[in-house]
């Protein structure tokens, strides 16, 4: 018999991010835990950014998918600690981002003390997800959603999104 918790976890892991549907919640690293307590499935998610408006949809989608899969009672909890990091995006998630024309994040800085200021252009190395060129230029550190920056390729000239390091 398949373990009930594993089955619930597998269903929850396949729910997709509403703003970046090429990623599952597991790929994105926001699904922190799934457990079964009696007949209740408790799924824990963490926001990517404090104001991420996709949280409500993720919660609804988790409830729907789990209910459809035969789990009648679903509770979705918020976990704030530790704060989400783009480092939690899985390797398969990074591949899915590239496939969809988005540049995946580089390693995030993990600091404990005072935060240093960066007045120059950010030092991240970004390759164009379309043509692979390293001749890319930042257009804006803020893009179409809280988690993305906007870049342009210097060779194929296409604009593209880069998932920010956080």
């Amino acid at each position: 018999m398949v373990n009930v918790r594993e089955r619930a976890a597998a269903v929850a892991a396949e729910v997709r991010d509403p703003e970046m549907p090429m990623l599952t919640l597991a790929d994105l690293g926001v699904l922190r835990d799934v457990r079964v307590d009696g007949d209740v499935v408790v799924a824990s998610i963490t926001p990517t950014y404090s104001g991420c408006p996709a949280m409500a949809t993720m919660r609804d989608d988790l409830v729907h998918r789990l209910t459809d899969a035969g789990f009648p009672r679903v509770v979705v909890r918020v976990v704030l600690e530790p704060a989400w990091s783009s480092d939690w995006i899985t390797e398969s998630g990074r591949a899915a981002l590239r496939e969809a024309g988005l540049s995946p994040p580089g390693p995030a800085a993990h600091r404990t003390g005072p935060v240093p200021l960066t007045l120059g252009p950010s030092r991240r190395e970004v390759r164009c997800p379309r043509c692979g060129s390293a001749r890319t230029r930042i257009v804006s550190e803020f893009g179409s959603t809280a988690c993305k920056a906007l870049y342009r390729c210097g060779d194929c000239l296409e604009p593209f999104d880069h998932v920010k390091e956080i």
Partner: protein
Amino acid sequence: MNDSVYDGLLGGDSSQWAFGTDFEDPLAGVDTSVPAGIDATQLATYCLMLGDDTLVLSQRLAEWCSRAPELEEDIALANMALDLLGQARLLLARAAAADPACVPALPAGSPVPAEDALAFFRAAEQFRNVRMAEVPNGDFAHVVVRLLLFANARLAVLSRLRDSADAVLAAVAAKGVKELTYHRDWAGRWFVTCAQGTDESRRRLLAALDRLWPLHDELFTPHPVELSLAGLGVGVDPGSVRAEADVVLDQVLAVADVPRPGTPGVRGRTGRDGLHTEALSRMLAEMQVVARAHPNGRW
């Protein structure tokens, strides 16, 4: 058939909407018990202070929507407004969870969640934000200077608040640090760009700095509640981060070749005491009007 085309959309399943319509508790499942030895009212007041700062500034940034000089900067300002609004939501929800008595009473049956009641049903004198957050918008240089001064001070506070004895505040701070790092870098880069750009951009930058500088001291002026909670390891005394924030600000001023203004700060009671400029009332009138007109409304 529905009499109104909208009737069929109400009630039942809300997930047909892009982001749902429900107001679920942003702290659902989070342990919000007040740490031992901490006064719940003080903790709630402290959360309101930090939360009101970001709520009010978020509203000011949102007023920039469609008005920025370039589309990219319009989107940048909206992104920063959203981050600050998210921080405000968590902080106001934390205030309400710590001390439900701080939440304004609403008519029976109102679906308004506690953090919205705090945002939309308090009068200006009940807000605890610093006045730097509330003064009206000016030109683009004004929002650059305001964000630089605010984000720089707030980043120094939050980077210490990550060690707060209150686990919720520590978690909100840890996330906020990551977001504000991007905000401060954005403002710092534009500060230098404006200062080193044309005569006109430099003139505007210096004028904005001149206008906002009298409110800069307030960012580092501790309120007794901040001092008390700092002593208990829950809050941060903003006065204690001044030197650290000054180092960063001097870095920006040096690169921009802009002298540090000499104008003294406004003294006396502050926004933390509920003393505000009249601009806050006007801003709140617009921000709150719909919620106040329909306290039982479902959206």
